[in-house]
C-alpha cells in the first residue's frame, strides 16, 4: 500500500522556479495496476522518480507499507530501490557495454543472489519479454530501441519488486509487443500482487489499467471510469 502525501518538487531554472509536482496526493492499494497520463513536460517522470526514491521531494512524503521515505537515510533508500522497486526508465538506462543478460543480472547481484540462480532467472525474464534468445548475450548498445526497452523491463522485474514504476514502457514497441508487455504487467499485478504504476501516452494502455490519473499543472486528478476494467 502506497500513500502519497502532498508531494511537491520544485526546480529553479534561472530566476523563476517551476513546480512540475505541486501538491500531489493519492493512495494505491497493493496489487493494483494504475496509469498516469499527461502532456509532455507535465512532470510525470519527476513524480515517478520521487516515488522510486531516485529524487527527494521539496516537501511532502511517500509512505510505503507504513514506512516514510522522508525519514530514511541514503543507505536505506538504496535498499528500498534494490528490494522493493522495479524502475523502467524512459531512456532505458542500460549499461551499454554489458550484455542483455548481464544487465538483467545486475540488480540480483546487488541483492546477493547466487550466480547460477541469477543467470537462470535473467534468461527466463528475457524470454518473458520476448527478447530473441540469440540476443541475450549481445551488448545492449547493439540492440534496437524496442529490444533495449524490453531488457529494461526484464531488469525491473529481476528482484520481484513489490512496486513497479514504468515510464513509457511501451513507447518504443510495436502494437503487438506492446500488448504482450501490458499483459505481462497485468498478470504480475493479478498473480503476484505487485503494485504497478505506468506512465503512458498510449490511450489504449491507459484504458486497460484499473485506475488512471492525469497530471496537470503539478496536480494529479483521477479520471473517473464508467465502464468496468477488462
Amino acid at each position: 500500500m502506497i500513500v502519497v502525501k502532498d508531494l511537491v518538487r520544485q526546480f529553479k531554472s534561472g530566476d523563476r522556479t517551476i513546480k512540475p509536482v505541486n501538491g500531489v496526493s493519492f493512495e494505491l492499494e497493493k496489487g493494483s495496476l494504475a496509469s498516469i497520463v499527461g502532456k509532455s513536460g507535465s512532470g510525470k517522470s519527476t513524480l515517478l522518480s520521487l516515488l522510486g526514491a531516485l529524487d527527494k521531494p521539496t516537501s511532502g512524503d511517500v509512505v510505503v507499507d507504513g514506512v516514510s521515505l522522508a525519514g530514511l537515510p541514503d543507505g536505506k533508500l538504496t535498499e528500498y530501490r534494490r528490494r522493493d522497486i522495479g524502475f523502467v526508465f524512459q531512456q532505458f538506462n542500460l549499461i551499454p557495454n554489458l550484455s542483455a543478460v548481464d544487465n538483467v543480472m545486475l540488480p540480483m547481484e546487488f541483492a546477493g543472489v547466487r550466480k547460477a540462480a541469477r543467470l537462470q532467472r535473467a534468461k527466463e525474464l528475457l524470454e518473458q519479454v520476448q527478447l530473441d534468445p540469440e540476443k541475450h548475450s549481445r551488448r545492449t548498445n547493439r540492440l534496437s530501441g524496442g529490444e533495449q526497452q524490453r531488457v529494461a523491463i526484464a531488469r525491473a522485474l529481476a528482484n520481484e519488486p513489490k512496486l513497479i514504476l514504468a515510464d513509457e514502457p511501451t513507447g518504443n514497441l510495436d502494437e503487438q509487443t506492446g500488448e504482450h508487455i501490458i499483459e505481462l504487467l497485468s498478470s504480475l499485478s493479478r498473480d503476484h500482487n505487485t503494485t504497478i504504476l505506468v506512465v503512458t501516452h498510449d490511450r489504449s494502455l491507459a484504458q486497460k489499467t484499473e485506475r488512471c490519473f492525469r497530471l496537470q499543472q503539478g496536480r494529479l486528478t483521477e479520471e473517473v471510469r464508467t465502464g468496468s476494467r477488462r
Partner: protein
Amino acid sequence: MSVLARSVGNAFRNKIRTAAVVAVLAVAIGLALSMLVANQAVGAKVQELNASVGTTLTVNPAGGQGFEGGGEPLTTAEAETAASVANVTSVVGTKALRLQTATTDSTTGTGQQTGPGGGFGPGGQQASVSTNLTAAVDAGTLGNRNNTSGTTGTTGTQPARTLPITATGIGAEVDSTGKALDITSGTGLGDYTTSEAKALVGTSLAEKNSLTVGSTFTIQDKTFTVAGIFDAGTTFGNNAVYVTLPEAQTLAETPDELSTMIVTVNSMENVDSTKTAVQAALGTDKADVTQGQRNLETAVSSLDSVKNISLIAFIAALATAGIIILLIMVMLVRERRREIGVLKAIGARNRTIGLQFVLESLVLVALGSVVGAVIASLASGGIASALISSNTTTTAATTTQRGGGLAGAMPNGAVPGGGMPGGGQGGPFGGASQLLTSVTASVSPGVLAAGIAAVFAVAIIGALVPALLTARIRPIEVLRGE
C-alpha cells in the same frame, strides 16, 4: 558477472585509452622499480664495502711504514698492551722477511744476507734472508727500476734481476692485512705461536717452484715443508710465504720484534674509538695506528648519497604513478557519472561501486606493473651505473692515482699490511669498478615484488579518492540527459 569481471571489462572499454594509460603508468612504475633496484643494489654494495673495510686496525712502528722510515720496532710486549685495550678482540703480530733468491754463484748471497738494516731498501724493519725459491713475478721494468734504486747503498755488481719474495711470520691464520687466509690445498700451520719448519706458499710461487703440499724448500739453509697452498687473489699476494711468527722472528734473529700488529675490534661502531684507545695505550712516539682501507670511506659516503638519491627518485616515481591513477580515475568517474547513477538507481551500494572503480584501477596498475617490470629489468642496471658513475667520478679519479702509486710500490717488495691501503685486494679502485658491475647484475625478484607491492598500495590510495567521489553521485542523475 561479478564486480571483478565488470572492473576488468571496464578497464578495456576504450582500448586505445587503456593502452595509453598503461604506457604512461609503465614508465612511472618502471622508473620507480629501477630506482628501488638501484637503491637496494647500492645499499648492498655499501654494506659489502663497509664489511671489507672491516674491523681491523693496523699498528706500525711510529715513523715507519713497511720498509720506509725509522723508529723503534714494535715488540711482543706492545702486542699485549694493545690486546688489553677495551673492545679489542685479538691482536695478531706479524714479522716480515724479505727472501732473496740465492744464486748458484757462491760469492753472492753474503751481501744480501746481512740481516736487519742491510740488504735492500732504507728501512730497518725487514730482515733479508736467502732462499732457494724463485719469485713468481718477473722483474719487468718496474722491478728493475726499483731494484736499481734499492741497491744504491750496496757496492759491487748487481746479481739481481730476480725479485725478492715476501715471507711473513704470522701469529694467526690471517694474511698480512688481517684477512683470513684462503688455503686451497693442504692445511694451515696449526699452532702459530710455536716455532716450526712449516710454511704456507702462495699459488703462483708454488707453481713457479713446482711445490706441492709436502714439498720442501730452504730459507737460510733451513728446510721447510709446505703445509698448504693459499690463494690471496692477486699476483703479488701469491708471491709470498707465510711461516709462524716465532719462526720468522728466529730467522730474522730478532726474537721479540714485530713488523706490524693487526688489531681486530669487536664491532664496526667501536673501530674509531678503539683506534684512539690503542694509539693512546701504545704512545704516539712508539706506534702509528691506522685503519685498513680507510680511503674506501669516501667511496662509501658517495655511494650513500646515491642511495639517498635513488630512494627519493623511487618515492617520486611512486607518487607520480599514484597521481596518474588518481587523475585517470577522476576522469573515468566524471565520464561515467550517468552510469554510476544507473547502478545506484537499481540498488547498488556505494561500496560496491567504489570497489568496482578501485579494482578497475588495479587492473590498469597490474598491466602497468608488468610492462614497468620489464622496463625496469632492462633499464635499472644502466640507471644504477649512470647514477654511480656520475656520483663517484671524483672518488674514482683519486683512487686511480692511488692505485697507480700502489702498483709501483708493490713489486718493490713493500711488506703488505704496512699501512698500504687495500694492498693485496686490488685497492679501492678495484672496489669501485667491481661495484659498477655488481650493481648492474642485481635485479632481484624479491626487490621487484616489494616494489610492485608498494606501487599497488599507492595505486589503491590514488584510486580511493575518486572511488569515494562516486558516493556523492545521486541516482537522479540518470533522469537528466547525457
